[in-house]
């Protein structure tokens, strides 16, 4: 069965390591914070200028001067630091963030990602997404494997305008965990109960399937 949003987040969380500085995008990526393994410490970077994002505030703690990149009120974790936007993106662009998790509309076999605009529809902008995909070495894209109409989002060539070129190496969908290398998708894991055939059918770009494809463990 396809993973729920929480399950996607849960599987991503297994890629965390102790002492990681992590930037989580809006949507499913945000949920990853809920599944940090016990005894492991990670620090969340919010690109509006906060390293060490804490949980949401109580009513009494709300501070209009303390928000995250999604414009939500937040708190600071112990050991947090505050900086300006140039410093924040120096951190991101300079490759100092250990893991970035973000959503996408499409990815392709060359590691291209399209995530910010659909021509003809209202364009809101890329925010920090282009900087994040260009700056990070270690990125996990989370998305549904296919559209509601069954159209694959894992393509030979992205059809939408790109957010980044050749940046993506790991994709976690509701059906599979996929690595991108040498111009091909590689199937690493399948969601529990999801067949390799179903994944193959819904992957438009070339997919390398090893003899044994393990089910995801949580």
């Amino acid at each position, binding site marked *: 069965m396809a993973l729920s949003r929480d399950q996607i987040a849960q599987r991503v969380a297994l890629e965390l390591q102790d002492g990681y500085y992590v930037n989580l995008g809006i949507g499913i990526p945000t949920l990853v914070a809920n599944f940090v393994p016990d005894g492991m410490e990670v620090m969340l970077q919010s690109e509006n200028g*906060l390293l060490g994002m804490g949980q949401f505030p109580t*009513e009494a703690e709300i501070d209009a001067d303390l928000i995250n990149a999604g414009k939500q009120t937040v708190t600071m974790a112990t050991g947090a630091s*505050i900086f300006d936007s*140039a410093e924040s993106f120096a951190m991101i*662009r300079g490759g100092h963030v250990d893991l970035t998790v973000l959503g996408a509309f499409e990815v392709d076999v060359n590691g291209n990602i399209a995530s910010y605009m659909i021509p003809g529809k209202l364009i809101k*902008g890329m925010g*920090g997404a282009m*900087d994040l995909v260009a700056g990070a070495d270690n990125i996990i894209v989370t998305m549904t494997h296919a559209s509601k109409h069954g159209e694959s989002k894992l393509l030979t060539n992205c059809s939408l305008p790109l957010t980044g070129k050749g940046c993506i190496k790991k994709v976690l969908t509701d059906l599979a965990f996929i690595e991108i290398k040498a111009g091909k998708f590689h199937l690493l894991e399948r969601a529990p109960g999801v067949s390799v055939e179903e994944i193959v059918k819904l992957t438009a770009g070339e997919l390398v399937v090893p003899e044994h494809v393990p089910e995801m463990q949580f």
Partner: protein
Amino acid sequence: MAGFNKVVNSYEEAMAGLTDNMTIISGGFGLCGIPENLISEIKRKGCKGLTLVSNNCGVDDFGLGILLPDRQIQKIVASYVGENAEFERQMMSGELAVELTPQGTLAEKMRAGGAGIPAFYTATGVGTPVAEGKDVRQFNGREYILEESITGDFAIVKAWKADKFGNLVFRKTARNFNPMAATAGKITVVEVEEIVEPGELDPDEIHTPGIYVNRLIKGTFEKRIEQRTTRPAGE
């Protein structure tokens, strides 16, 4: 003589000299740390044909959004927009030009503008619509695009505290784009919650030295919250 005292006593004085078709660089992220009252003064003055450089463009009735109904903004350079209906209408109809710029590139363009760096290379945007018409060059086997700096006729900034010399301290994530904006205006105007005497701020803790600041005014702020997210008390 006035020396280094940057304090002005009215918003009219703070924005004096702003005229039609000027470029204004604004601090703020969403509605956090925006120069609320300086924006209101721009609305009151009614200048038209403005180019705004700001990460966002406010909401319908707050922040830079209040400059939309009277069509004061001709162009906006931003990373993320469209949080309000009038903005969408003007953008879709072509009345408002929008130059989308990646957030980190935007921050760096402002910093470069203030720092006398006319252009820099970045990997951000390579192979995307942002790269169109820009120089591409390889360094160590990777492609980068050339991005030019931004300066403004005015910069409008919100800080937390200042001394009379214009030394600024920001508070929490209301810092965001404000320090870079402060460096990039021909005339930099700053509004703050509190003005203290020179010497009261620890020199090591000043975020923006007064050399960048031309005018300083004390204001009161609504500080509207966009996404009020909370957890239950006791958790």
